[in-house]
């Protein structure tokens, strides 16, 4: 190597201390390629340096967990020799800069994380947060993100079956695009990334490497300022057609026993994939960059190592199996190149044109990555907002109509009709319900899946908000009749270098850890996205929870649709009428104030287990959880889903009508039961210690709350379905 370079002016995002640490590891100054490698490996995005301490507190184990956090995706046992493999990941920064490609490559990346482990992806979901609808960029960002997600998932042929989409001014400068993929694999054929076997070939497959996405991981580890548009070159460009070929080729090769280890090239591309494989296997790795397939000539070692070109994989093959593997990839028209070998040096050695371009010891690069205990200040608990302090409206049905037409509660059909949600022909419950249900191909059982988070709760009280996100995901799976199994978390926050933001993060983690523990709902994979802030203004804390459950018998599941008249509606769970941090308070009363509804995890579990028992016994087939907007909104969503109206009784003594109908108390479900089963259900609920009461009857084509004006389903549907298409086609 040529003489030691001087200390550079641009440390590529490393702090002075971090740079000194790199010098100590090398015993000399790094050259530019080495500096780039340290920079991305020690970026927040790749190293979790600010979050690791807290992530380690999360529950990650259960008898059904096959692989928890640390691999490309989490793996759980779903019975019959099969495993579900899933993860959610953020692609926030690139999606704000270039919404179509940013969102598309977010989907591509998470798909690769799942099929890298040997699973065929069976479903995609996403959690999207946009700025205020009035913000001039919002419409453009919604259109681009939705089109990008659709373009990728539709082309590769994996159904996009669920998600959420909210709007709040805190996301004006930083949208959140979180993508989740669920796959299914034989549970004894899971592929991991630990390399082994000194001398074995390191193989590069997939697309060629270009100059796109260079330093994307570093870009995603810094906040935005007014010049964020200038970061467009750090956004990758996706090619879902190539990914489809890569998927089929990988699964074809995985059906043989040729592969020792495999790792997709995601953030930090060839750098991160080669370092992770070598580190997990405690081996060295040598790479010859002249052998790397390139789209462009004259690429430097720095550019090749830091490119985030998409649709690429790195593999270690068993000796002598190279030609077998090459034949598979060539059949699918993909590049296949032996780019290096495993060594016993413990070092990452990169050569280009016969010269050593980088030489770094692997273990310290990973083990001595910085870890920070960032200072944090707890979020002061908000004052509770009493129902009496929220004005009582004149018309409950008028409020219902306004809520159902509000940006957060309106129908998201405009979004999910742009996603192919039926390809693979196993989508049993389509988007729009509590959980999507995808049949396990060839079986009569299904995976239920959902993504949930209520950022306004997290902003008001991070611990309660973190717990609520998990509880709501668990409830949504339960409402479909599924047994909730495990969680993936995608934690979106502002800058960890600010104590208030770290306080939000610590609080949310505490809440979600407590909820996961109480509900036997371990975290098996996840991702942290910090620096979602612009000019010092952070997004609302948004720990999005993706969750998967199993429905053992698809003949015993529930949907939210009211589709028969004369049934009795039963509300399960306690209602105090909590209006703090509710959508009613925000959208109707104009109050963004108050503590979020308390989360009683024992009650969640009791109530949910009771409801699931009724569904599993085949006694209830209609169920919906009560969340945003409260009871009246829940019943309205059920009525609109099935086309049958309902009449609702007056609130019980002591609860004001607006608090009863729009309060967001947790641990609640609405079920519809045949009149002759009601008495027995109520008795059983009492025995189980579960609050339950009848609240009305189904029938007609309108909703009527006692003492209030009725509203026709047609009028409600118009309001509910109309807002988003109207918004997107105006302006």
């Amino acid at each position: 190597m040529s003489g030691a370079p001087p200390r550079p002016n641009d440390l590529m995002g490393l702090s002075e201390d971090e740079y000194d640490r790199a010098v100590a590891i090398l015993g000399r100054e790094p050259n530019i390629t080495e500096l780039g490698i340290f920079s991305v490996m020690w970026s927040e995005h790749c190293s979790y340096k600010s979050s690791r301490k807290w992530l380690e507190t999360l529950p990650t184990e259960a008898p059904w967990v096959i692989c928890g956090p640390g691999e490309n995706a989490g793996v759980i046992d779903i019975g019959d020799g099969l495993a579900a493999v899933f993860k959610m990941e953020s692609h926030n920064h690139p999606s704000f800069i270039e919404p179509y490609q940013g969102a598309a490559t977010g989907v591509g990346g998470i798909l690769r994380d799942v099929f890298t482990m040997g699973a065929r992806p069976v479903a995609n979901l996403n959690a999207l947060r946009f700025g205020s609808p009035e913000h001039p960029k919002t419409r453009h960002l919604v259109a681009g993100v939705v089109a990008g997600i659709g373009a990728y998932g539709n082309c590769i042929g994996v159904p996009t079956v669920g998600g959420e989409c909210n709007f709040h001014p805190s996301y004006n400068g930083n949208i959140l695009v979180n993508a989740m993929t669920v796959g299914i694999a034989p549970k004894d054929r899971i592929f991991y990334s630990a390399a082994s076997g000194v001398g074995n070939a390191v193989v590069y497959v997939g697309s060629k490497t270009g100059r796109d996405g260079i330093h994307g991981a570093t870009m995603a580890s810094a906040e935005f300022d007014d010049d964020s548009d200038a970061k467009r070159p750090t956004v990758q460009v996706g090619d879902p057609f190539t990914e489809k070929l890569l998927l089929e080729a990988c699964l074809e090769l995985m059906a043989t026993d040729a592969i020792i280890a495999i790792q997709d090239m995601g953030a930090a591309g060839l750098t991160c994939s080669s370092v992770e494989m070598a580190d997990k296997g405690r081996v060295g790795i040598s790479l010859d960059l002249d052998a790397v397939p390139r789209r462009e000539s004259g690429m430097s070692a720095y550019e090749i190592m830091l490119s985030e070109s998409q649709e690429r994989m790195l593999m270690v093959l068993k000796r002598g199996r190279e030609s077998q593997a090459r034949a598979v990839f060539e059949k699918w028209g993909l590049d296949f190149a032996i780019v290096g070998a495993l060594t016993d040096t413990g070092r990452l050695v990169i050569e280009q044109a016969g010269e050593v371009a980088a030489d770094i010891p692997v273990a310290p690069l990973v083990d001595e990555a910085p870890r920070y205990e960032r200072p944090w200040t707890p979020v002061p608990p908000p004052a509770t907002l009493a129902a009496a302090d929220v004005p009582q409206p004149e018309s409950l049905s008028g409020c219902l109509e306004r809520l159902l037409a509000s940006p957060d509660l309106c129908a998201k059909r405009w979004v999910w009709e742009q996603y192919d949600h039926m390809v693979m022909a196993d989508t049993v419950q389509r988007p729009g319900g509590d959980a999507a249900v995808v049949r396990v191909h060839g079986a009569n059982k299904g995976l239920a899946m959902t993504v949930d988070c209520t950022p306004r709760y997290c902003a008001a009280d991070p611990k309660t908000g973190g717990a609520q996100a998990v509880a709501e995901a668990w409830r949504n799976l339960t409402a479909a009749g599924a047994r909730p199994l495990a969680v993936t978390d995608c934690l979106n926050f502002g800058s960890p270098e600010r104590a208030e933001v770290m306080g939000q993060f610590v609080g949310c983690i505490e809440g979600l850890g407590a909820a996961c523990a109480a509900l036997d709902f371990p975290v098996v994979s996840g991702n942290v996205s910090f620096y979602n802030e612009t000019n010092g203004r952070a997004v609302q804390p948004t720990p999005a929870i993706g969750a998967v459950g199993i429905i053992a018998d698809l003949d015993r599941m529930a949907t939210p649709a009211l589709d028969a008249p004369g049934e009795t509606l039963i509300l399960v769970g306690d209602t105090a009428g909590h209006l703090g941090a509710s959508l009613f308070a925000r959208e109707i009363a104009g109050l963004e104030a108050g503590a979020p509804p308390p989360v009683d995890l024992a009650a969640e579990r009791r109530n949910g287990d009771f409801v699931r028992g009724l569904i599993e016994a085949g006694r209830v087939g209609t169920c919906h959880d009560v969340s945003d907007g409260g009871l009246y909104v829940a019943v309205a969503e059920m009525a609109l889903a099935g086309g049958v109206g309902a009449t609702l009784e007056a609130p019980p003594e002591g609860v004001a009508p607006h608090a009863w109908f729009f309060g967001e108390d947790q641990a609640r479900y609405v079920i519809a039961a045949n009149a002759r089963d009601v008495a027995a259900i109520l008795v059983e609920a009492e025995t189980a210690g579960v609050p339950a009461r009848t609240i009305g009857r189904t029938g007609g084509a309108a909703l009527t709350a006692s003492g209030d004006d009725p509203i026709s389903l047609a009028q409600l549907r118009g309001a509910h379905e109309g807002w988003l298409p109207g918004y997107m086609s105006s302006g």
Partner: protein
Amino acid sequence: MQAAVIVFPGSNCDRDVAVALGASMGRPPLMVWHGDSALPAVDLIVIPGGFAYGDYLRAGAIAAHSPVMREVVARARAGAPLLAICNGFQVAAESGLLPGALLPNAGLKFVCRDVYIRTESSGGIFTGHYQRGQVIRLPVAHHAGNYHIDDDGLKALEDNGQVAFRYCTPGGEPGDGANPNGSRDDIAGVYNEAGTVLGLMPHPERLADPRLGGDDGKAMFDSLVAALG
């Protein structure tokens, strides 16, 4: 009866149609890779949905020049039954096996939803189990399903009874919102002159199983099995 499903790089409904067709046939169809120039002797050829060759250039345009298509076109011209669904319809139109062309949707967005279509003729090999005028519900999922044909071509289609299905309301009427993509005269599917090639944008294989919310598509596969043995 034996059938072959053509698999292009980028096909993604090949398994779906194989499952639905296999359920009606009582055995799985053959899957034929695009690179194979030999096509086994079969009673039915299926070109499935997806994004063959990524739909680069134009939907279906590259696939139409794939090695296996030479043989598919030759067989179809010689009278072999061919079912072309969604991307398959685009490939068949690009190959000249069916009249007209499929343009980007009028709304310029991908659209995935259930639609109602009216059976415009019955009794052929594809629709023996449907009544003429019967309204069925099937999903569409495409970004280029806007069927276009010139005036003379349209007249010829009508005169020859080549319009297979039209988008309609649940009551069977043409109407606002029934047509998801702007197709001329609400055309959702067309036959070749001989009635042996059917191209349609809706996916019969996606609603051929009550578990998925309906089975109106199953009758198409049952019709084929009844007609072709």
